[in-house]
Structure formats: structure tokens, C-alpha cells
């Protein structure tokens, strides 16, 4: 890879550094909080387990806590951290990164500066993409993989292989979200277009996932929701990593990336 490419990757990482660091530390603090609370929760976990079993299965699935094992730290953290907080942070972070990548630069007017340099649209796109992958990886390692040393510090034990599997699945989920955002960013001229479009699509997918669990006739609709394929609780508590999930999330990522690149190469950049 060329000097131009790495200079641009570095520039992107430098520009996004505070955003990456703050999202990662925010997610890590949540994880620290849950791990720190767990010992005091542990004595009551069996009762909570029982309580949760009385809830409708679809409701628990909606919050990614269908693997009811609150008696273990994996089960507890997956119910607390991965049911809502981590996916929400991952979606915000993925869409913010995607929105800023192209639409944000067009919006601010800096895209014309970039395009006037001998970088080229394809190389610019790939450099932005690569720096986003590094950011996603960093976020995942800090907010999920750090679970292993964190648990050790608290004198608890965790299945390291399951944590790695959860990290892989979560990174793929976040990457797919980023790629969906990047696809819209490639043709949009405002960041907000990315947030509202993909935010709306994800909200619709989330609703579909809940409804498909509640209404039998809508059961098959669950396959159209990205949240159906993202089951970190299964990965963390049982080490289950569905091949279907890996294939679908990868397919979303690859298709959105290729389409985004194609659209960005062809589009008119009108802002300043």
C-alpha cells in the first residue's frame, strides 16, 4: 500500500481519535460496572433467574437474554451489557463513523479539499474504510475482549474462548452496521441522512424481531432482522457461534461496501 494511503488512514484515525476513545472507554466503564456489581448480585442471581423465566420468551429474546444463566458472570454480563447497552453504543458509534466518513466531509465542505489532492476516490474510500475497521476492532477489544483480564482482576473466572467468540460476532455486527451507514454516506451530502435512514431501518428491524417472536404468523420475518443474527448471549454463555449469523453479517458488510464504493466513485460532489 502506498504512502498516500497510509497518510490518509493516519489522518482519519487522528481525526476520529477522541470519538473512538470516548466510545470505547464509555463501553468499558459499563463493563467494569457490571463486573464490579456481579459479586454482590451473585447471591441473589438464582432468584433473578427464576423471575426472568416467568417473562415471555419473545420479550427476553428482544433484549438478547434468552440464555437464562444469571448464575454465571457470562450470563449476567450478557443480560446486562449485551442486551441493550453495547448494541446501542455499537450502533451509535458505527453510524457516527460512517456518517462522518463521506457525507460528513461533503457536508462540512472538506471533501473538495480531499478530492483536489492526488488521492483518488477509491483509495480515499478504502483508507476511510480501513481506519473504520481499526476503530471497530479497537472498540471491540476495549469493550468486550477486556472482559477476560477484567474478570481475572476481580478474582473471578470466565471462559476466554467464549469471550473471543463474542468479540468476533460483535465486531461483525458493528462492521455490518458501519457498512450499511457507509452505503448511505456514499450518496448523501449530510450526516443526518445516514443517521435517520439507517437508524430508521435498524429500528424497523428491531420491531420486526420482537413482533416475529410474539406473533406466530410473523415468525419467518425474523430472518429479515439483523438483530436475529446477533446473539452475543449464546456466544458468551454457551460458546455458540452460528454460521448463518457469520455469513449473513459478512454478506451485509461486503454487499454494502461494494455498493458504497461503486456509488461514491460515480457520484457528484457538489458541496464547495
Amino acid at each position: 500500500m502506498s504512502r498516500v494511503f497510509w497518510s490518509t488512514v493516519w489522518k482519519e484515525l487522528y481525526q476520529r481519535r477522541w470519538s473512538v476513545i470516548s466510545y470505547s472507554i464509555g463501553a468499558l466503564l459499563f463493563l467494569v460496572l457490571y463486573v464490579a456489581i456481579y459479586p454482590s448480585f451473585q447471591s441473589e442471581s438464582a432468584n433473578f433467574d427464576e423471575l426472568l423465566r416467568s417473562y415471555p420468551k419473545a420479550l427476553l429474546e428482544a433484549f438478547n437474554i434468552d440464555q437464562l444463566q444469571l448464575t454465571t458472570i457470562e450470563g449476567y454480563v450478557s443480560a446486562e451489557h449485551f442486551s441493550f447497552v453495547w448494541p446501542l453504543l455499537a450502533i451509535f458509534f458505527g453510524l457516527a463513523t460512517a456518517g462522518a466518513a463521506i457525507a460528513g466531509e461533503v457536508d462540512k465542505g472538506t471533501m473538495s479539499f480531499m478530492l483536489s489532492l492526488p488521492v483518488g476516490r477509491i483509495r480515499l474510500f478504502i483508507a476511510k474504510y480501513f481506519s473504520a475497521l481499526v476503530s471497530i476492532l479497537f472498540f471491540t477489544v476495549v469493550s468486550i475482549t477486556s472482559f477476560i483480564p477484567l474478570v481475572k482482576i476481580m478474582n473471578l473466572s470466565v471462559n476466554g474462548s467464549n469471550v473471543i467468540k463474542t468479540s468476533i460476532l460483535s465486531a461483525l455486527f458493528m462492521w455490518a452496521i458501519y457498512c450499511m451507514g457507509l452505503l448511505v454516506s456514499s450518496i448523501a451530502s449530510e450526516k443526518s441522512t445516514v443517521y435517520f435512514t439507517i437508524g430508521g431501518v435498524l429500528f424497523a428491524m428491531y420491531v420486526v424481531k420482537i413482533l416475529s417472536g410474539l406473533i406466530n404468523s410473523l415468525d419467518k420475518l425474523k430472518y429479515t432482522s439483523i438483530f436475529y443474527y446477533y446473539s452475543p448471549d449464546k456466544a458468551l454463555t454457551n460458546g455458540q457461534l452460528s454460521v448463518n449469523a457469520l455469513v449473513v453479517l459478512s454478506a451485509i458488510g461486503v454487499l454494502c461496501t461494494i455498493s458504497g464504493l461503486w456509488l461514491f466513485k460515480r457520484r457528484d460532489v457538489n458541496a464547495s
Partner: protein
Amino acid sequence: MSTVLSLHKVTKKFGKKVAVSNVSVQLQAGEIYGFLGPNGAGKTTTIRMILDFIRPTSGSVSLFDNGNANGIVTSLKDVGYLSADNTFYANWTAKRHFNYVERVRGMKTDALDLARRFELDVNTRYRHLSSGNKQKLSLILAMMHKPKLLILDEPTRGLDPLLQENIYDMLQDFKKAGGTVFMSSHNLAEVQKICDRVGIIREGKLVASETMQSLRKMHVHEIRVLFEKPVDFKKFEASNVEIIKAEDLELLAHVRGDFNSFLKEVTKYTLTDLDVTHVSLEDMFMRFYK
């Protein structure tokens, strides 16, 4: 002399709106071309097509005689661009901008010397710079790598007269060193001062493309005549004569090109006063918009 920039029948439509229509321009190495027109005439759209920010609906753009055969990226190595809106990274200092451009272009440049010449503080964040300093930064970024072609979208906008002079000097030096400039402007005085050729764009169409020399040759004279007795003013009508005012004993006419035959006609009568002045380039420019 080699062709540095060629626009061939370039048209750009945004939906039904025709922003630029059938524009053809060729720039030879070492010339400064002024692209004149009011807001919304299509100047910036044309510049964006040259830089491949937007793609022509029809027609072609070629840089450095290669028909973009080596791709726009190769051509951009020898192009410097100043945007009318000059927006850069708000949290970056001028120095960081210079460093990034140097890394991308793979060369050490004289950006810091230019910054000293323009008295630009290179350690201030972009968002804290005044509009004049932002313009200076934009100009340095366009020139720091010693390009062969400068594309400037209103380069002196927002600058004080002293700085404008500084820029005119720099552009003249750039031209003497063999550089070529394509600049858009509203300012006729600056075009008159530094350009070799001028193109006038109106509603997306290039209505005139002349050398400054031929534009001056086309100069119109304003002739004011006071007759001693009433005369029939229709006698003075001719293809190159436009009668502006004909009242009582006074005749005011604009005569394009050679005015001798007009003078011969009017001096057949007894005159009490005769005044011949040049119509300014600005007035001539305005004629293209009527």
C-alpha cells in the same frame, strides 16, 4: 505550446436545470485565463467538472493533453486548487494541513516560506482564523507544491487591497515560471490586470472568449457632440453606432471599433463641443449581460 486544459462542449444538467451548456475552452501553458460571470452563471460548476468533483452530462475535460488517459489522480499531482468556500479541517492548524499535503504529495514544499510571505500564523487552528487568513491558507495549499496548473475560484475574495496586490504579483511570477492559471472572478479590474484571456459565462453559456488585447481593441468609445443648430440624428446611425441620447442639440453615442467615419459625419456640421472617452471594460462586460 502544449494544451494544459481543454474543455470540449461540456454540458452539465442537474435534473432539468442546465447549469453549464456546451462550454469549450482551451488553455495553453503559460497563460492566465479569467472566467467571468455573475453568481449562478456556472463558473464553480465548470471548475468542479475540471477537477472531477462532478461529471459532465456530455462533453469532455482533459488535463495536460492526456485526455485524462492516466486518470485524474495523476493529473492532480500538477494541479493546485483554491475553492471559493475554502473549507478545511476546523481543528487542524495550517501546519498540520501543510504536513498532510506534503505526505500525500510525497514532497517537501515551501509552504512555510509562503506562510511567512503572507504573514499567516501556522500554529492557529483553522476555525480560529479570520476569513482573510483562511483565504491565505487556501492559496498556500494550492501553490505550495509548485503545480503546473492553478485552478482558482475567486482567489481574492475577502482580501484587503494590499494582499490582493501580493497575490497578483505571485500569479505573475507563477506565469513567468511557465505556470498556467484558470481563475474565476467577479472582479473585472483584477481580470484586466492579470489575465491574458477572458471567458464570459452567462446562464451556463460561454458568451465570449477573447484575449484581453482583442477585448481592448473592441473597445467602445463614448462620443458626446453638441451641435450649433438642430440636425437630423438619424443620419449618424450605423452598424457600429448605438445612439444613447439624442435631444435638442446634444447627441450621445457609443461607437464600436473605428470611430473616424462617425466623426467625419458629425464634423460636417458646426459643433460647439465634442467629447470622446473610452467606455470602461466594466461597461463592456455589462453589455454581454444585457
